Protein backbone atom coordinates (compact mmCIF):
# COMPACT_ATOMS: atom_id res chain seq x y z
CA UNK A 1 0.00 0.00 0.00
CA UNK A 2 1.28 3.41 -0.90
CA UNK A 3 0.56 6.63 0.71
CA UNK A 4 -1.29 8.54 -1.98
CA UNK A 5 0.54 11.81 -1.74
CA UNK A 6 3.94 10.24 -1.26
CA UNK A 7 3.37 8.22 -4.41
CA UNK A 8 2.35 11.27 -6.37
CA UNK A 9 5.37 13.21 -5.26
CA UNK A 10 7.68 10.36 -6.17
CA UNK A 11 6.15 9.88 -9.61
CA UNK A 12 5.91 13.52 -10.43
CA UNK A 13 9.49 13.99 -9.31
CA UNK A 14 10.81 11.12 -11.39
CA UNK A 15 9.79 12.40 -14.79
CA UNK A 16 10.04 16.15 -14.44
CA UNK A 17 7.38 18.72 -13.75
CA UNK A 18 3.73 17.77 -13.93
CA UNK A 19 1.74 18.87 -16.96
CA UNK A 20 -1.49 18.82 -15.01
CA UNK A 21 -1.62 19.39 -11.28
CA UNK A 22 -4.90 18.96 -9.46
CA UNK A 23 -5.10 19.93 -5.80
CA UNK A 24 -8.06 19.62 -3.45
CA UNK A 25 -10.55 19.65 -6.29
CA UNK A 26 -14.15 19.79 -5.16
CA UNK A 27 -17.24 19.81 -7.38
CA UNK A 28 -20.98 19.79 -6.87
CA UNK A 29 -24.08 18.82 -8.82
CA UNK A 30 -26.48 21.33 -7.31
CA UNK A 31 -26.32 20.67 -3.57
CA UNK A 32 -24.83 17.23 -3.97
CA UNK A 33 -21.08 17.05 -3.55
CA UNK A 34 -19.54 14.81 -6.22
CA UNK A 35 -15.83 15.47 -5.61
CA UNK A 36 -14.47 15.95 -2.11
CA UNK A 37 -10.76 16.40 -2.46
CA UNK A 38 -9.16 15.13 -5.64
CA UNK A 39 -5.38 15.49 -5.84
CA UNK A 40 -3.45 14.11 -8.78
CA UNK A 41 -0.59 14.82 -11.14
CA UNK A 42 -0.16 13.92 -14.76
CA UNK A 43 3.16 14.29 -16.54
CA UNK A 44 3.82 15.04 -20.16
CA UNK A 45 3.38 12.00 -22.37
CA UNK A 46 1.82 9.77 -19.73
CA UNK A 47 -1.27 7.62 -20.01
CA UNK A 48 -3.05 7.76 -16.67
CA UNK A 49 -6.28 5.98 -15.80
CA UNK A 50 -8.88 6.92 -13.27
CA UNK A 51 -10.41 3.76 -11.87
CA UNK A 52 -13.35 3.36 -9.56
CA UNK A 53 -16.91 2.22 -9.27
CA UNK A 54 -19.94 3.92 -10.76
CA UNK A 55 -20.60 7.25 -9.13
CA UNK A 56 -17.12 7.48 -7.61
CA UNK A 57 -16.38 10.79 -9.35
CA UNK A 58 -14.21 9.74 -12.30
CA UNK A 59 -16.26 11.40 -15.03
CA UNK A 60 -16.87 14.40 -12.80
CA UNK A 61 -13.11 14.82 -12.46
CA UNK A 62 -12.77 14.97 -16.25
CA UNK A 63 -15.70 17.39 -16.51
CA UNK A 64 -14.13 19.57 -13.84
CA UNK A 65 -10.82 19.68 -15.71
CA UNK A 66 -12.81 20.70 -18.78
CA UNK A 67 -14.67 23.43 -16.87
CA UNK A 68 -18.02 21.79 -17.44
CA UNK A 69 -19.01 21.65 -13.77
CA UNK A 70 -20.84 24.78 -12.76
CA UNK A 71 -19.66 24.62 -9.17
CA UNK A 72 -16.08 23.60 -8.48
CA UNK A 73 -13.28 24.64 -6.15
CA UNK A 74 -9.63 23.86 -5.54
CA UNK A 75 -6.89 24.11 -8.09
CA UNK A 76 -6.32 22.65 -11.56
CA UNK A 77 -3.09 23.81 -13.19
CA UNK A 78 -2.04 23.12 -16.75
CA UNK A 79 1.71 23.85 -17.00
CA UNK A 80 1.30 26.07 -13.95
CA UNK A 81 -1.65 27.98 -15.38
CA UNK A 82 -4.79 27.92 -13.23
CA UNK A 83 -7.88 26.58 -15.02
CA UNK A 84 -10.43 27.10 -12.24
CA UNK A 85 -12.41 30.13 -13.31
CA UNK A 86 -11.75 29.59 -17.03
CA UNK A 87 -14.71 29.01 -19.32
CA UNK A 88 -14.98 25.57 -20.88
CA UNK A 89 -14.36 26.83 -24.40
CA UNK A 90 -11.25 28.72 -23.23
CA UNK A 91 -9.92 25.53 -21.61
CA UNK A 92 -10.39 23.65 -24.90
CA UNK A 93 -8.38 26.37 -26.66
CA UNK A 94 -5.50 25.84 -24.22
CA UNK A 95 -5.06 22.37 -25.66
CA UNK A 96 -7.25 20.01 -23.66
CA UNK A 97 -9.67 17.84 -25.62
CA UNK A 98 -12.47 15.85 -24.07
CA UNK A 99 -14.33 12.86 -25.46
CA UNK A 100 -17.44 12.45 -23.30
CA UNK A 101 -19.08 9.18 -22.38
CA UNK A 102 -22.15 9.96 -24.50
CA UNK A 103 -19.82 10.81 -27.42
CA UNK A 104 -21.67 14.02 -28.28
CA UNK A 105 -21.90 13.47 -32.03
CA UNK A 106 -23.86 16.27 -33.70
CA UNK A 107 -26.89 14.64 -35.29
CA UNK A 108 -27.55 17.21 -38.02
CA UNK A 109 -23.96 17.16 -39.28
CA UNK A 110 -22.37 14.50 -41.46
CA UNK A 111 -19.36 12.47 -40.40
CA UNK A 112 -17.09 14.78 -42.42
CA UNK A 113 -18.63 17.87 -40.84
CA UNK A 114 -18.38 16.38 -37.35
CA UNK A 115 -14.75 15.58 -38.02
CA UNK A 116 -13.76 19.06 -39.18
CA UNK A 117 -15.91 21.00 -36.73
CA UNK A 118 -13.60 21.25 -33.70
CA UNK A 119 -11.29 24.24 -34.00
CA UNK A 120 -7.53 23.69 -34.46
CA UNK A 121 -6.07 24.94 -31.21
CA UNK A 122 -2.43 24.16 -31.82
CA UNK A 123 -0.07 22.87 -34.52
CA UNK A 124 0.78 19.20 -34.56
CA UNK A 125 -2.70 17.69 -34.68
CA UNK A 126 -3.32 14.64 -36.83
CA UNK A 127 -4.17 15.07 -40.48
CA UNK A 128 -7.44 13.69 -41.75
CA UNK A 129 -5.45 10.99 -43.54
CA UNK A 130 -3.84 9.86 -40.29
CA UNK A 131 -7.25 9.73 -38.60
CA UNK A 132 -8.60 7.57 -41.44
CA UNK A 133 -5.59 5.27 -41.01
CA UNK A 134 -6.55 4.82 -37.38
CA UNK A 135 -10.24 4.44 -38.12
CA UNK A 136 -10.70 3.14 -41.68
CA UNK A 137 -14.49 2.84 -41.16
CA UNK A 138 -14.84 6.62 -41.05
CA UNK A 139 -13.36 7.04 -44.50
CA UNK A 140 -16.23 5.02 -45.97
CA UNK A 141 -18.95 6.91 -44.14
CA UNK A 142 -18.03 10.56 -44.64
CA UNK A 143 -21.41 11.65 -45.96
CA UNK A 144 -23.47 9.68 -43.48
CA UNK A 145 -25.30 11.56 -40.76
CA UNK A 146 -23.18 11.53 -37.60
CA UNK A 147 -25.67 9.71 -35.42
CA UNK A 148 -26.56 7.16 -38.11
CA UNK A 149 -23.25 5.41 -37.41
CA UNK A 150 -23.04 2.32 -35.21
CA UNK A 151 -22.03 2.82 -31.58
CA UNK A 152 -18.45 1.77 -32.29
CA UNK A 153 -18.15 4.06 -35.31
CA UNK A 154 -19.58 6.95 -33.33
CA UNK A 155 -16.91 6.37 -30.70
CA UNK A 156 -14.24 6.38 -33.44
CA UNK A 157 -15.64 9.65 -34.76
CA UNK A 158 -15.79 11.16 -31.28
CA UNK A 159 -12.13 10.28 -30.66
CA UNK A 160 -11.01 11.03 -34.21
CA UNK A 161 -12.35 14.54 -34.31
CA UNK A 162 -10.47 15.68 -31.21
CA UNK A 163 -7.17 14.34 -32.56
CA UNK A 164 -7.28 16.89 -35.38
CA UNK A 165 -7.25 19.83 -33.01
CA UNK A 166 -3.64 19.53 -31.85
CA UNK A 167 -4.68 19.23 -28.21
CA UNK A 168 -1.83 17.99 -26.01
CA UNK A 169 -3.96 16.51 -23.24
CA UNK A 170 -6.70 14.07 -24.23
CA UNK A 171 -9.46 13.16 -21.77
CA UNK A 172 -11.32 9.97 -22.66
CA UNK A 173 -14.41 9.06 -20.67
CA UNK A 174 -15.11 5.31 -20.86
CA UNK A 175 -14.26 4.97 -24.55
CA UNK A 176 -14.86 1.22 -24.58
CA UNK A 177 -18.22 1.13 -22.85
CA UNK A 178 -20.69 -1.17 -24.59
CA UNK A 179 -18.45 -1.87 -27.58
CA UNK A 180 -17.55 -5.13 -29.29
CA UNK A 181 -14.16 -6.65 -28.32
CA UNK A 182 -12.66 -6.00 -31.76
CA UNK A 183 -13.47 -2.30 -31.49
CA UNK A 184 -12.16 -2.17 -27.94
CA UNK A 185 -8.86 -3.53 -29.26
CA UNK A 186 -8.84 -0.95 -32.01
CA UNK A 187 -9.34 1.85 -29.49
CA UNK A 188 -6.51 0.35 -27.43
CA UNK A 189 -4.22 0.56 -30.46
CA UNK A 190 -5.22 4.17 -30.96
CA UNK A 191 -4.38 5.10 -27.38
CA UNK A 192 -0.95 3.47 -27.81
CA UNK A 193 -0.43 5.51 -30.97
CA UNK A 194 -1.31 8.66 -29.07
CA UNK A 195 1.32 7.83 -26.50
CA UNK A 196 3.89 7.19 -29.22
CA UNK A 197 3.14 10.65 -30.54
CA UNK A 198 3.90 12.09 -27.12
CA UNK A 199 0.33 13.02 -26.24
CA UNK A 200 -0.88 12.84 -22.69
CA UNK A 201 -4.01 10.84 -21.99
CA UNK A 202 -6.30 10.62 -18.98
CA UNK A 203 -8.53 7.62 -19.36
CA UNK A 204 -11.58 6.89 -17.28
CA UNK A 205 -12.29 3.16 -17.36
CA UNK A 206 -14.43 0.58 -15.67
CA UNK A 207 -12.72 -2.12 -17.70
CA UNK A 208 -9.53 -2.56 -15.72
CA UNK A 209 -8.17 -5.38 -17.89
CA UNK A 210 -8.26 -2.99 -20.81
CA UNK A 211 -6.72 -0.14 -18.83
CA UNK A 212 -3.76 -2.10 -17.51
CA UNK A 213 -2.56 -2.90 -21.02
CA UNK A 214 -2.24 0.79 -21.81
CA UNK A 215 -1.58 2.92 -18.77
CA UNK A 216 1.60 4.10 -17.08
CA UNK A 217 -0.17 4.82 -13.83
CA UNK A 218 -3.53 4.34 -12.19
CA UNK A 219 -5.47 6.40 -9.70
CA UNK A 220 -8.31 4.85 -7.76
CA UNK A 221 -11.19 7.17 -6.96
CA UNK A 222 -13.81 6.49 -4.32
CA UNK A 223 -16.49 8.82 -2.97
CA UNK A 224 -14.92 11.84 -4.62
CA UNK A 225 -11.43 11.21 -3.23
CA UNK A 226 -8.27 9.68 -4.63
CA UNK A 227 -7.81 6.66 -2.36
CA UNK A 228 -4.87 4.98 -4.01
CA UNK A 229 -2.43 5.21 -6.86
CA UNK A 230 0.10 2.88 -8.41
CA UNK A 231 2.31 2.47 -11.42
CA UNK A 232 1.39 -0.20 -13.91
CA UNK A 233 4.37 -2.26 -12.75
CA UNK A 234 2.91 -2.35 -9.26
CA UNK A 235 -0.41 -3.72 -10.46
CA UNK A 236 0.38 -7.49 -10.30
CA UNK A 237 1.25 -7.22 -6.62
CA UNK A 238 -1.92 -5.28 -5.89
CA UNK A 239 -4.49 -7.25 -7.84
CA UNK A 240 -6.57 -8.28 -4.83
CA UNK A 241 -6.68 -4.76 -3.52
CA UNK A 242 -7.77 -3.39 -6.89
CA UNK A 243 -10.44 -6.05 -7.17
CA UNK A 244 -11.77 -4.95 -3.80
CA UNK A 245 -11.76 -1.28 -4.84
CA UNK A 246 -13.53 -1.94 -8.09
CA UNK A 247 -15.83 -4.66 -6.84
CA UNK A 248 -14.86 -7.05 -9.63
Amino acid at each position, binding site marked *: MHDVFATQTTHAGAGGAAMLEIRNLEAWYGESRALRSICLDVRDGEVVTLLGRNGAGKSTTLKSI*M*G*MMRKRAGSIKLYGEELIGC*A*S*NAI*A*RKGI*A*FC*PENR*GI*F*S*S*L*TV*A*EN*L*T*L*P*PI*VRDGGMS*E*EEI*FDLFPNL*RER*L*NTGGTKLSGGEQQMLAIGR*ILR*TGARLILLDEPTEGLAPAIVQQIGRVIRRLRERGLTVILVEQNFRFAETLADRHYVIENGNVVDSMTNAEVPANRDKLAAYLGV
Partner: protein
Amino acid sequence: MTTIDIKQQPVARLEWEKVALVILLALALIAPSFVYPLFLVRILTFVLFASAYNLIFGYAGLLGFGHAAFFGLASYAVAQSAKTLPITPEIAILFGVFVSAAMGVVFGWLAIRRQGLYFAMITLALAQIVYFFFAQVEWAHGEDGIQSVPRGHFLGLIDLSDNMVMYYFVLGVFLIGFLFLLRVIASPYGEVLKAVRDNEARAISLGYDANAIKLIAFTISAGLAGLAGGLNALSFQLASLSDVHYLLSAEVILMVLIGGAATTIGPVLGAVVVVAMQNYFAPFGAWVLVFQGVIFVVCVLTMRNGIVGVIDMLAKAWVDKSGKAY
Protein backbone atom coordinates in the same frame (compact mmCIF):
# COMPACT_ATOMS: atom_id res chain seq x y z
CA MET B 1 -2.49 6.35 -51.01
CA THR B 2 -4.65 9.13 -52.35
CA THR B 3 -5.34 12.07 -50.15
CA ILE B 4 -8.99 12.72 -49.54
CA ASP B 5 -10.20 16.26 -49.28
CA ILE B 6 -13.22 15.66 -47.13
CA LYS B 7 -14.59 19.14 -47.79
CA GLN B 8 -15.21 18.21 -51.39
CA GLN B 9 -17.44 15.24 -50.82
CA PRO B 10 -20.97 15.96 -52.01
CA VAL B 11 -23.60 15.93 -49.33
CA ALA B 12 -26.71 14.02 -50.38
CA ARG B 13 -29.28 16.02 -48.48
CA LEU B 14 -32.37 17.66 -49.93
CA GLU B 15 -31.05 17.62 -53.49
CA TRP B 16 -34.45 18.63 -54.85
CA GLU B 17 -34.19 21.80 -52.80
CA LYS B 18 -31.57 23.32 -55.10
CA VAL B 19 -33.56 22.46 -58.21
CA ALA B 20 -36.69 23.99 -56.69
CA LEU B 21 -34.83 27.18 -55.75
CA VAL B 22 -33.58 27.58 -59.33
CA ILE B 23 -37.11 27.04 -60.70
CA LEU B 24 -38.50 29.60 -58.23
CA LEU B 25 -35.83 32.09 -59.29
CA ALA B 26 -36.76 31.63 -62.94
CA LEU B 27 -40.42 32.13 -62.01
CA ALA B 28 -39.54 35.27 -60.06
CA LEU B 29 -37.87 36.72 -63.17
CA ILE B 30 -40.94 36.33 -65.38
CA ALA B 31 -43.75 36.50 -62.82
CA PRO B 32 -44.45 40.28 -62.98
CA SER B 33 -45.74 39.77 -66.52
CA PHE B 34 -48.58 37.73 -65.06
CA VAL B 35 -49.00 38.82 -61.45
CA TYR B 36 -49.36 42.25 -59.87
CA PRO B 37 -45.75 43.35 -59.11
CA LEU B 38 -46.47 44.80 -55.66
CA PHE B 39 -47.99 41.50 -54.57
CA LEU B 40 -44.76 39.82 -55.67
CA VAL B 41 -42.76 42.46 -53.79
CA ARG B 42 -44.69 41.54 -50.66
CA ILE B 43 -43.88 37.88 -51.22
CA LEU B 44 -40.17 38.59 -51.72
CA THR B 45 -39.87 40.76 -48.61
CA PHE B 46 -41.67 38.17 -46.50
CA VAL B 47 -39.59 35.33 -47.95
CA LEU B 48 -36.50 37.26 -46.89
CA PHE B 49 -37.98 38.02 -43.47
CA ALA B 50 -38.96 34.38 -42.89
CA SER B 51 -35.56 33.14 -44.10
CA ALA B 52 -33.82 35.57 -41.75
CA TYR B 53 -35.97 34.35 -38.88
CA ASN B 54 -35.22 30.75 -39.84
CA LEU B 55 -31.52 31.43 -39.17
CA ILE B 56 -32.21 31.85 -35.46
CA PHE B 57 -35.26 29.59 -35.15
CA GLY B 58 -34.27 26.73 -37.44
CA TYR B 59 -30.47 26.79 -37.38
CA ALA B 60 -29.76 28.22 -33.94
CA GLY B 61 -32.79 26.73 -32.18
CA LEU B 62 -33.80 30.09 -30.69
CA LEU B 63 -37.55 30.68 -30.52
CA GLY B 64 -37.59 34.48 -30.78
CA PHE B 65 -40.99 36.04 -30.42
CA GLY B 66 -40.18 39.59 -31.39
CA HIS B 67 -38.65 39.58 -34.83
CA ALA B 68 -41.12 42.16 -36.11
CA ALA B 69 -39.13 44.68 -34.04
CA PHE B 70 -36.25 44.44 -36.52
CA PHE B 71 -38.49 44.42 -39.57
CA GLY B 72 -40.44 47.42 -38.24
CA LEU B 73 -37.46 49.39 -36.95
CA ALA B 74 -35.85 49.27 -40.39
CA SER B 75 -39.20 50.04 -41.96
CA TYR B 76 -39.46 53.27 -39.94
CA ALA B 77 -35.78 54.10 -40.35
CA VAL B 78 -35.94 53.74 -44.13
CA ALA B 79 -39.24 55.60 -44.42
CA GLN B 80 -38.15 58.51 -42.27
CA SER B 81 -34.67 58.83 -43.79
CA ALA B 82 -35.95 58.55 -47.37
CA LYS B 83 -38.60 61.14 -46.62
CA THR B 84 -36.55 63.71 -44.77
CA LEU B 85 -32.97 63.30 -45.98
CA PRO B 86 -31.55 63.89 -49.45
CA ILE B 87 -30.38 60.29 -49.86
CA THR B 88 -30.87 57.63 -52.51
CA PRO B 89 -33.01 54.54 -51.73
CA GLU B 90 -30.07 52.14 -51.45
CA ILE B 91 -28.46 54.34 -48.81
CA ALA B 92 -31.76 54.51 -46.91
CA ILE B 93 -31.98 50.70 -47.02
CA LEU B 94 -28.39 50.29 -45.86
CA PHE B 95 -29.18 52.63 -42.99
CA GLY B 96 -32.22 50.49 -42.12
CA VAL B 97 -30.12 47.30 -42.14
CA PHE B 98 -27.51 48.97 -39.96
CA VAL B 99 -29.94 50.12 -37.26
CA SER B 100 -31.69 46.72 -37.21
CA ALA B 101 -28.42 44.85 -36.91
CA ALA B 102 -27.27 47.25 -34.17
CA MET B 103 -30.49 46.68 -32.26
CA GLY B 104 -30.01 42.95 -32.93
CA VAL B 105 -26.66 43.09 -31.10
CA VAL B 106 -28.26 44.75 -28.07
CA PHE B 107 -31.42 42.61 -27.94
CA GLY B 108 -29.42 39.48 -28.68
CA TRP B 109 -26.92 40.26 -25.97
CA LEU B 110 -29.76 40.66 -23.48
CA ALA B 111 -31.71 37.58 -24.58
CA ILE B 112 -29.35 34.78 -25.63
CA ARG B 113 -28.29 33.90 -22.11
CA ARG B 114 -31.78 32.49 -21.60
CA GLN B 115 -33.35 29.59 -23.43
CA GLY B 116 -36.72 28.30 -24.55
CA LEU B 117 -39.71 30.13 -23.16
CA TYR B 118 -37.58 32.69 -21.31
CA PHE B 119 -35.82 33.64 -24.52
CA ALA B 120 -39.19 34.00 -26.25
CA MET B 121 -40.56 36.18 -23.45
CA ILE B 122 -37.52 38.47 -23.32
CA THR B 123 -37.59 39.00 -27.09
CA LEU B 124 -41.35 39.65 -26.96
CA ALA B 125 -40.92 42.20 -24.17
CA LEU B 126 -38.13 44.01 -26.02
CA ALA B 127 -40.18 44.03 -29.23
CA GLN B 128 -43.13 45.51 -27.37
CA ILE B 129 -40.88 48.33 -26.17
CA VAL B 130 -40.10 49.05 -29.82
CA TYR B 131 -43.81 48.92 -30.71
CA PHE B 132 -44.79 51.40 -28.00
CA PHE B 133 -41.86 53.63 -28.90
CA PHE B 134 -43.19 54.02 -32.43
CA ALA B 135 -46.75 54.36 -31.14
CA GLN B 136 -45.60 57.31 -29.01
CA VAL B 137 -43.03 59.33 -30.94
CA GLU B 138 -44.52 62.18 -32.87
CA TRP B 139 -42.58 61.73 -36.11
CA ALA B 140 -43.94 58.19 -36.53
CA HIS B 141 -47.50 59.61 -36.67
CA GLY B 142 -49.09 56.89 -34.47
CA GLU B 143 -51.78 54.84 -36.22
CA ASP B 144 -51.27 56.65 -39.52
CA GLY B 145 -47.61 55.75 -39.78
CA ILE B 146 -45.17 57.45 -42.12
CA GLN B 147 -46.98 57.77 -45.43
CA SER B 148 -46.06 58.84 -48.96
CA VAL B 149 -42.47 57.71 -48.64
CA PRO B 150 -40.67 58.62 -51.86
CA ARG B 151 -39.10 55.62 -53.64
CA GLY B 152 -36.46 57.87 -55.14
CA HIS B 153 -33.90 57.04 -57.80
CA PHE B 154 -31.67 53.97 -57.47
CA LEU B 155 -28.06 55.23 -57.46
CA GLY B 156 -29.61 58.61 -58.28
CA LEU B 157 -30.23 57.33 -61.83
CA ILE B 158 -33.08 54.84 -62.12
CA ASP B 159 -36.53 56.06 -61.16
CA LEU B 160 -38.26 53.48 -58.95
CA SER B 161 -41.72 55.00 -59.08
CA ASP B 162 -42.84 52.46 -61.67
CA ASN B 163 -43.98 49.24 -59.93
CA MET B 164 -42.27 47.00 -62.46
CA VAL B 165 -38.91 48.76 -61.98
CA MET B 166 -39.41 48.65 -58.22
CA TYR B 167 -40.06 44.91 -58.40
CA TYR B 168 -36.77 44.16 -60.16
CA PHE B 169 -34.92 46.45 -57.75
CA VAL B 170 -36.45 44.50 -54.83
CA LEU B 171 -35.63 41.19 -56.54
CA GLY B 172 -31.99 42.23 -56.93
CA VAL B 173 -31.64 43.33 -53.30
CA PHE B 174 -33.56 40.26 -52.15
CA LEU B 175 -31.14 37.97 -53.99
CA ILE B 176 -28.15 39.62 -52.35
CA GLY B 177 -29.70 39.09 -48.92
CA PHE B 178 -30.92 35.57 -49.63
CA LEU B 179 -27.66 34.34 -51.18
CA PHE B 180 -25.72 35.85 -48.29
CA LEU B 181 -27.93 33.86 -45.93
CA LEU B 182 -27.39 30.63 -47.90
CA ARG B 183 -23.65 31.27 -47.77
CA VAL B 184 -23.76 31.77 -43.99
CA ILE B 185 -25.71 28.54 -43.51
CA ALA B 186 -23.32 26.54 -45.71
CA SER B 187 -20.17 28.07 -44.20
CA PRO B 188 -18.07 26.50 -41.44
CA TYR B 189 -19.70 29.03 -39.13
CA GLY B 190 -23.11 27.61 -40.14
CA GLU B 191 -21.93 24.14 -39.15
CA VAL B 192 -20.84 25.39 -35.75
CA LEU B 193 -24.23 27.06 -35.35
CA LYS B 194 -25.99 23.76 -36.05
CA ALA B 195 -23.62 22.02 -33.64
CA VAL B 196 -24.51 24.52 -30.91
CA ARG B 197 -28.19 23.87 -31.57
CA ASP B 198 -27.72 20.08 -31.48
CA ASN B 199 -25.58 19.90 -28.35
CA GLU B 200 -24.53 23.20 -26.86
CA ALA B 201 -22.48 21.77 -23.99
CA ARG B 202 -20.43 19.64 -26.39
CA ALA B 203 -19.83 22.53 -28.79
CA ILE B 204 -18.56 24.63 -25.87
CA SER B 205 -16.24 21.90 -24.62
CA LEU B 206 -14.80 21.60 -28.13
CA GLY B 207 -13.73 25.22 -27.83
CA TYR B 208 -16.58 27.35 -29.17
CA ASP B 209 -18.13 30.27 -27.34
CA ALA B 210 -21.77 29.31 -27.85
CA ASN B 211 -23.14 32.68 -26.77
CA ALA B 212 -20.94 34.52 -29.26
CA ILE B 213 -21.95 32.09 -32.02
CA LYS B 214 -25.64 32.64 -31.24
CA LEU B 215 -25.21 36.41 -30.98
CA ILE B 216 -23.66 36.53 -34.46
CA ALA B 217 -26.63 34.57 -35.84
CA PHE B 218 -29.07 36.83 -34.04
CA THR B 219 -27.39 39.93 -35.42
CA ILE B 220 -27.27 38.63 -39.01
CA SER B 221 -30.90 37.61 -38.71
CA ALA B 222 -31.89 41.03 -37.34
CA GLY B 223 -30.00 42.81 -40.13
CA LEU B 224 -31.68 40.72 -42.84
CA ALA B 225 -35.10 41.16 -41.21
CA GLY B 226 -34.31 44.87 -41.39
CA LEU B 227 -33.45 44.55 -45.07
CA ALA B 228 -36.86 42.98 -45.66
CA GLY B 229 -38.61 45.67 -43.63
CA GLY B 230 -36.78 48.45 -45.45
CA LEU B 231 -37.67 47.05 -48.88
CA ASN B 232 -41.26 46.67 -47.76
CA ALA B 233 -41.53 50.27 -46.52
CA LEU B 234 -39.94 51.69 -49.66
CA SER B 235 -42.09 49.61 -52.02
CA PHE B 236 -45.39 50.36 -50.30
CA GLN B 237 -44.24 53.89 -49.41
CA LEU B 238 -45.45 53.30 -45.89
CA ALA B 239 -44.11 52.45 -42.46
CA SER B 240 -46.87 51.65 -39.99
CA LEU B 241 -47.44 50.10 -36.58
CA SER B 242 -48.43 46.80 -38.18
CA ASP B 243 -44.74 46.45 -39.17
CA VAL B 244 -43.70 46.32 -35.49
CA HIS B 245 -46.77 44.52 -34.18
CA TYR B 246 -46.41 41.20 -32.32
CA LEU B 247 -48.87 39.63 -34.77
CA LEU B 248 -46.19 40.02 -37.42
CA SER B 249 -43.71 38.26 -35.12
CA ALA B 250 -46.21 35.41 -34.82
CA GLU B 251 -46.81 35.38 -38.56
CA VAL B 252 -43.14 34.87 -39.34
CA ILE B 253 -42.99 31.89 -36.97
CA LEU B 254 -46.04 30.53 -38.78
CA MET B 255 -44.36 30.93 -42.17
CA VAL B 256 -41.25 29.05 -41.04
CA LEU B 257 -43.25 26.26 -39.40
CA ILE B 258 -45.61 25.80 -42.36
CA GLY B 259 -42.71 25.72 -44.81
CA GLY B 260 -40.30 23.69 -42.70
CA ALA B 261 -37.73 25.00 -40.23
CA ALA B 262 -33.98 24.51 -40.68
CA THR B 263 -34.27 24.09 -44.44
CA THR B 264 -33.42 26.77 -46.99
CA ILE B 265 -36.57 26.41 -49.04
CA GLY B 266 -39.03 25.93 -46.15
CA PRO B 267 -39.39 29.63 -45.23
CA VAL B 268 -39.69 30.46 -48.94
CA LEU B 269 -42.67 28.13 -49.38
CA GLY B 270 -44.17 29.11 -46.02
CA ALA B 271 -44.00 32.84 -46.81
CA VAL B 272 -45.53 32.32 -50.25
CA VAL B 273 -48.42 30.32 -48.76
CA VAL B 274 -49.15 32.78 -45.95
CA VAL B 275 -48.86 35.94 -48.07
CA ALA B 276 -50.93 34.41 -50.88
CA MET B 277 -53.54 33.33 -48.39
CA GLN B 278 -53.77 36.80 -46.89
CA ASN B 279 -54.02 38.30 -50.35
CA TYR B 280 -56.58 35.95 -51.89
CA PHE B 281 -58.65 35.59 -48.74
CA ALA B 282 -58.68 39.37 -48.22
CA PRO B 283 -62.37 39.64 -49.24
CA PHE B 284 -63.24 37.58 -46.16
CA GLY B 285 -61.87 40.33 -43.90
CA ALA B 286 -60.93 39.31 -40.38
CA TRP B 287 -61.82 35.69 -41.23
CA VAL B 288 -58.31 35.43 -42.72
CA LEU B 289 -56.98 35.07 -39.18
CA VAL B 290 -59.37 32.20 -38.54
CA PHE B 291 -58.27 30.45 -41.75
CA GLN B 292 -54.65 31.04 -40.78
CA GLY B 293 -55.29 29.52 -37.37
CA VAL B 294 -56.95 26.44 -38.86
CA ILE B 295 -54.20 25.95 -41.42
CA PHE B 296 -51.57 26.36 -38.73
CA VAL B 297 -53.20 23.71 -36.52
CA VAL B 298 -53.57 21.31 -39.47
CA CYS B 299 -49.95 21.86 -40.50
CA VAL B 300 -48.56 21.29 -37.02
CA LEU B 301 -50.69 18.17 -36.52
CA THR B 302 -50.12 16.55 -39.90
CA MET B 303 -46.78 17.85 -41.20
CA ARG B 304 -44.06 17.51 -38.64
CA ASN B 305 -41.49 19.31 -40.77
CA GLY B 306 -43.83 21.47 -42.81
CA ILE B 307 -44.29 21.40 -46.55
CA VAL B 308 -40.64 20.46 -47.01
CA GLY B 309 -41.14 17.41 -44.82
CA VAL B 310 -44.04 16.26 -46.98
CA ILE B 311 -42.10 16.77 -50.22
CA ASP B 312 -39.13 14.93 -48.70
CA MET B 313 -41.39 12.02 -47.83
CA LEU B 314 -42.94 11.93 -51.32
CA ALA B 315 -39.52 12.17 -52.97
CA LYS B 316 -38.26 9.30 -50.85
CA ALA B 317 -41.32 7.18 -51.64
CA TRP B 318 -40.89 7.91 -55.35
CA VAL B 319 -37.21 7.00 -55.23
CA ASP B 320 -37.88 3.79 -53.30
CA LYS B 321 -40.55 2.84 -55.83
CA SER B 322 -38.48 3.57 -58.92
CA GLY B 323 -35.41 2.01 -57.29
CA LYS B 324 -33.11 4.88 -58.16
CA ALA B 325 -30.37 6.20 -55.94
CA TYR B 326 -31.47 9.50 -54.46
